[in-house]
């Protein structure tokens, strides 16, 4: 292989070189963009759950009392018993658990959406600690309350006041802005978990449709091994019944409804088509290259180049061309993915995970988690694309070796 000859050929045969590089780079760019998009949608689907430090949320639908008075459970989240919680905690693949109690409290003058939380658990709604705008977050062992800032403004509630919820009194220690927080597991009043449990346990209205004892909950947030999440989803339904709502990144991915989110098979098929197109383009260009250069190959053979010498020269040209195509394809993909990263994705939050009573004004509105599409090209994908390009170059160059061997100098150099 002669490097000078190689680069002169690529430089002086600009049309041929550019056709090969551009053709292949489109295939490589498509491959990278499709996979980057697929990964971005997967990552986006993790966002609603990741924001509350979980991989899975679990709740069980049930009935709402006919008489909406005092503390009741939303129909989407009724009692999960202590024994069921313990069973879930012992499932293989579960790395951590957060518990919460979500209540609707209908007092004579106002309705509350109450969320009882574990103040110091990083899995679950305690991540709202960072959303406190005034006062402080809940402290362990103290019966106190946090109020959502918009709700506090609407009802004129201030930090330091004491509020009454279903007959229990709680000092307001802080306000928090839930609009800056996750779209699930939000409320307008946050209490320590034990106080929310007491409110639920003491509500006769609630007990009639969904018996509840201290230690029971109605929302679970699970941290799990990523590869075990699909299996765990099935196990959770075995424990809680088929109607249980188990939200996972995959269930959010399905809600996205995008082609890229629908199936890994689509991405795989599209990637394979892109690779195939890239190979065909490379092969066709190289074959054309050899046909066009038959006379030149004849000269090389006549002056003493062996088949191996000629193939090595053409192979190195093919590899360099494909390497350049891979780098160009990667550059194109970088530019396109940069543009795509400005796209906003609206991930619909299922109605049964939204805390608002659907029968109140605005309660039935679809809510979304909106985020910029987290599209980027990881090093592994970039390296794969470049290596694949080189491999395609090697493959086509190798395959065309047989054509080179068939070229007879006496035939191509004959002048008559």
């Amino acid at each position: 292989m002669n490097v000078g000859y190689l680069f002169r050929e690529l430089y002086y045969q600009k049309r041929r070189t550019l056709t090969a590089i551009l053709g292949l780079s489109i295939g490589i760019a498509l491959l990278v963009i499709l996979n980057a998009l697929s990964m971005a949608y997967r990552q986006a689907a993790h966002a609603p759950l990741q924001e509350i430090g979980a991989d899975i949320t679990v709740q069980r639908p049930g009935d709402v009392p006919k008489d909406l008075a005092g503390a009741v459970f939303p129909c989407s989240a009724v009692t999960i018993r202590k024994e069921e919680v313990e069973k879930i905690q012992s499932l293989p693949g579960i790395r951590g658990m957060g518990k919460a109690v979500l209540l609707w409290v209908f007092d004579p003058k106002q309705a509350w959406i109450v969320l009882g939380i574990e103040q110091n658990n990083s899995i679950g709604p305690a991540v709202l600690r960072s959303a406190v705008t005034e006062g402080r977050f809940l402290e362990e062992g103290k019966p106190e309350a946090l109020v959502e800032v918009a709700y506090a403004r609407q009802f004129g509630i201030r930090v330091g006041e004491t509020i009454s919820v279903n007959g229990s009194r709680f000092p307001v220690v802080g306000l928090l802005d839930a609009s800056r927080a996750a779209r699930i597991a939000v409320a307008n009043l946050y209490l320590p978990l034990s106080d929310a449990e007491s409110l639920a346990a003491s509500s006769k209205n609630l007990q009639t449709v969904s018996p509840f004892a201290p230690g029971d909950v109605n929302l679970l947030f699970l941290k799990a091994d990523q590869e075990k999440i699909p299996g765990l989803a099935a196990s959770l339904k075995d424990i809680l019944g088929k109607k249980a709502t188990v939200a996972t990144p995959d269930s959010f991915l399905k809600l996205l409804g995008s082609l890229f989110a629908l199936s890994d098979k689509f991405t795989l098929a599209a990637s394979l088509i892109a690779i195939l197109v890239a190979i065909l383009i490379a092969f066709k260009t190289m074959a054309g290259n050899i046909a066009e250069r038959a006379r030149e190959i004849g000269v090389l053979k006549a002056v003493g180049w062996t088949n191996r010498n000629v193939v090595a020269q053409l192979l190195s040209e093919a590899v360099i061309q494909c390497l350049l195509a891979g780098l160009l394809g990667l550059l194109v993909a970088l530019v396109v993915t940069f543009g795509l990263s400005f796209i906003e994705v609206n991930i619909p939050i299922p109605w049964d995970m939204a805390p608002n009573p659907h029968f109140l004004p605005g309660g039935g509105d679809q809510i979304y988690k909106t985020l910029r599409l987290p599209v980027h090209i990881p090093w592994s994908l970039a390296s794969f694309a470049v290596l694949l390009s080189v491999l395609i170059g090697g493959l086509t160059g190798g395959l065309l070796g047989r054509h080179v061997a068939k070229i007879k100098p006496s035939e191509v150099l004959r002048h008559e």
Partner: protein
Amino acid sequence: MNNSKILSGTKLSKNYGELEVVKGVTISVAAGEFVSLVGKSGCGKTTLLSLLSGLERPTKGDVLLNGKKINGASEDELALFRRENVGFIFQSFNLIPTLSAWENVALPLFPVKMTGEERKRRATELLDQMELGHRMDHLPSALSGGEKQRVAIARALINKPKIIFADEPTGNLDSVTGDAIMEILNRLHTKEGVAILMVTHEAELAKTANRLIRMHDGEVIS
């Protein structure tokens, strides 16, 4: 010139399907000899040149080149043999358009393990002999017909061959330039002692050689 044979072909035949292009030709070239092979277009002289130079295999007969029987050799063995023993000059020059004059001259050395400087030194030396030292970095497209053929001659000489096969070397040149090329070939044969087998259809040109072989319809007639 001595009388030892550098090239001999015995009872050479070449068929393309039913068509017999070369018919039982026996021919030899002595070391340092300048032989012209003349005949009308299509009489089989270029095919015979290809058989003798190892570019093509005979259907029948043997070729002995520099003491080695080449018709049984593999393609790669033949290529290596050509690289070490044979030089070619073609009517249409057959220079590589993307390589400069000196790189075209050094083309047979590209697969040989040696430094780039050594290749360039040897190519430059030959281009100087062809009075083309000042054109060494030019591409073939910037050279005249005569200059291109002189580059091709330098390329044929780069491996210090025992014999040069020239196929209509002046066919694409005007008469003045053609004469100059013939002068170079004559000088190579007289001063350097290189054997030359030249194919031509021009009788006048053929007369400059030591010996003249006439072909007609695939056979040697004199």
